[in-house]
């Protein structure tokens, strides 16, 4: 009897949840809470605008929750600023988010969900290269521009899609900048180590650093590990025994504490330079200060950089979402991407996919927070600069210190 009631209860709960859900799109937590409050305002606003322009934002959902939060908020801030100035083509800019999770199937489903909506003019946001590789052809087929944040070189080398745009520096630029910084700025140009993850991200960087070291006559010692490894003592000791002068640590966010603690515990104290993950607050809080003190990181945007536009963006971000909101370079990137897309729509004078694509291709030094956007080579890449930051301990807390802006087009 109990089971019977439980079955009825479960059916009721499921139906209620589905019914509740059917009225809203996928939204970030902050958006969900605001939906009801803003309902009245939206009605008023819709009278001011001549319709809506929807920009899709494909996130990683709960797979990388901090990323999702900052990306959704960055996009919302860009839309709010544009709407304050009268929208785009007289229309209100509306952000529609969808969860692409972190597996190819889920990314395809998330992208298809956005593409189902005929009012979506363009899509941006997705950061994982494998997911970007899985979905790019869907956008080509649908003739909808896609601005990706995945950095793999394969996204440029192996695709033939004029609807594909990358609004951040690729691994070719990022990893090369890390190696260049260690070898040329710090003068450590005899033996370099690279510790990389055995995935597209790490292997892409390995290829770039290998090419750079071969060109410069630097001896490279390469050690890889699997993402789920919790002990990389063997790899660290091999690098140490090889007498490397510096190490490029090309690792994802989840591996930062493992790599940092292993290197610290094994006494590998040479200068290290990693990707943006080693500079992000969310990763640094999982590490003891001593593990990561002094590490260099290649990032799209160093938030402590003395740049008026950047600092103004940061102030407005926290003003809009509160002091407790989380902001990373990804949020700033998406903010730039939404502005870039809307700039192209404005120039195209239409929300028609091919017209937006053409306008984006003709972008000439659009001022993004992570650099000026202009086509590099013949396709896909539009950003060629990165910032080098250093982790420094101030009052027991790790902060990023801006070192310099670097990068090259090829």
């Amino acid at each position, binding site marked *: 009897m109990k*089971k*019977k009631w*439980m*079955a009825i209860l*479960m059916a009721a709960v*499921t139906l209620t*949840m*589905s019914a*509740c*859900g*059917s*009225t*809203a*799109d*996928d*939204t*970030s*937590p902050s958006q*969900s809470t605001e939906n009801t409050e803003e309902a009245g305002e939206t009605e008023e606003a819709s009278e001011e605008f001549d319709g809506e322009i929807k920009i899709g934002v494909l996130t990683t*959902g*709960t797979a990388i*929750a901090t990323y*999702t939060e900052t990306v959704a908020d960055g996009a919302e801030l860009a839309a709010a600023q544009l709407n304050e100035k009268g929208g785009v083509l007289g229309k209100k800019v509306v952000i529609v988010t*969808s*969860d692409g999770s*972190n*597996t*190819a*199937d889920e990314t*395809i*489903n998330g992208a*298809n*969900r956005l*593409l*189902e909506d005929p009012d979506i003019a363009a899509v941006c946001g997705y950061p994982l*290269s*494998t997911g970007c*590789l*899985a979905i790019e*052809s*869907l956008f080509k087929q649908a003739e909808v521009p896609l601005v990706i944040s995945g950095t*793999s070189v*394969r996204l440029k080398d*192996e695709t033939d899609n004029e609807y594909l745009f990358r609004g951040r520096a690729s691994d070719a630029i990022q990893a090369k900048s890390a190696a260049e910084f260690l070898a040329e700025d710090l003068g450590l140009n005899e033996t370099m180590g690279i510790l990389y*993850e*055995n*995935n*597209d*991200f*790490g*292997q*892409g960087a390995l290829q770039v650093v290998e090419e750079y070291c071969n060109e410069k006559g630097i001896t490279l010692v390469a050690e*890889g590990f*699997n993402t789920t490894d919790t002990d990389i003592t063997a790899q660290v000791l091999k690098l140490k025994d090889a007498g490397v002068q510096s190490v490029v640590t090309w690792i994802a966010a989840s591996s930062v504490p493992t790599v940092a603690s292993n290197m610290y515990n094994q006494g590998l104290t040479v200068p290290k330079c990693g990707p943006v993950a080693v500079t992000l607050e969310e990763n640094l809080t999982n590490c003891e200060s001593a593990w990561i003190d002094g590490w260099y990181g290649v990032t799209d945007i160093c938030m402590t950089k003395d740049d008026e536009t950047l600092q103004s963006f940061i102030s407005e971000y926290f003003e809009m979402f509160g002091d407790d909101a989380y902001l990373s370079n990804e949020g700033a990137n998406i903010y730039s991407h939404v502005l870039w897309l809307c700039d192209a729509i404005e120039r195209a004078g239409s929300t028609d996919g091919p017209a937006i694509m053409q306008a984006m291709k003709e972008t000439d030094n659009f001022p993004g927070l992570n650099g000026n956007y202009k086509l590099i080579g013949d396709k896909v890449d539009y950003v060629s600069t990165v910032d080098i930051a250093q982790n420094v301990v101030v009052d027991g807390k790790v902060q990023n210190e801006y070192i310099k802006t670097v990068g090259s087009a090829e």
Partner: protein
Amino acid sequence: MKTAREWKKYFPVFLMLLLAVIPAFVTGNYYRTVCCQAMLYAIVALGLNFIVGLSGLMTLGTAAIYGLGSYVSALFCVKLGWNPWAALIPVLISGWLIGKGLGYPSLRVQGVYLSLATIGFNEIVRNLLTNLEWTGSGTGIRNIPVYEIGGFAFDTQIRSYYLIYAVLLLFIVIAWKIVNSRWGRAFKAVKDNPDALEVCGINIANVKITAFTLSAIFAVVAGAMYAHFNRYITPATYTTDLSISFVVMLIIGGLGNFWGCIYGAYIVAFLPQLLRPIGLTYKLIYAVIIMLLVVFFPNGIFHDIRRYLGLHRVLKKGGEEG
């Protein structure tokens, strides 16, 4: 007037007709893609049913077998330029070999130890696919060709749907024949009374290895179909999570319940998509629902709901009358 049991006989026909007309009502690529994923899962679940549902052996390495099917087919087509249909030959051979290879450990280890051994197999395969250069490493294999018949390419969602539907139909017939054959009865006996099976002179080792082999063949074919449907594969897809999802499909459908494999696959594929509008918490809610389903409907949703509502008595009575 037909009795309930007589109507029940037509259930497979209704089900397959329903699946055949779905694309007429589902026009967008989003749900058509999910339908294709569900049908591929259903093929895997039908095969897994031989091991988990009928023979009672718990295996958690199915995603790796599914992945090997995808990679074998993709590698033969992309690297060697084989036709996708011809690539089914090495795919089937690989399924046969994997099934034999995995079947032997099942003779020595049982229960939780067999589960652990198969999890180990899943991780070994995934790590190999991630680390070997010729498998495309972490970024996988792109530009996998689609199936073609006489110049007719299955290159759209709707065409892929009917191709996968046809394959599912074929595998339903094969699985149905196997379940109701001497093999099927032997699988059930392995779970229910292995001693009696031996007394009857049936070699349990052979039965177990056959179950694993058949299951692997179903999984590799589904994996190959998946590779040519998606046109891009990466090792990150074939995780232990996916293996667990395959077992969940069987449990939701009812362990050993033939048609349960199919609706279990559809529930696992569609439920998260239907919950998406809830927002970021949808995966949490999905996990809670699955957990509750497993706890409160251990024999499969429809079986238990029917039982709770007393319908099974009606069906039974109808059957007796009929």
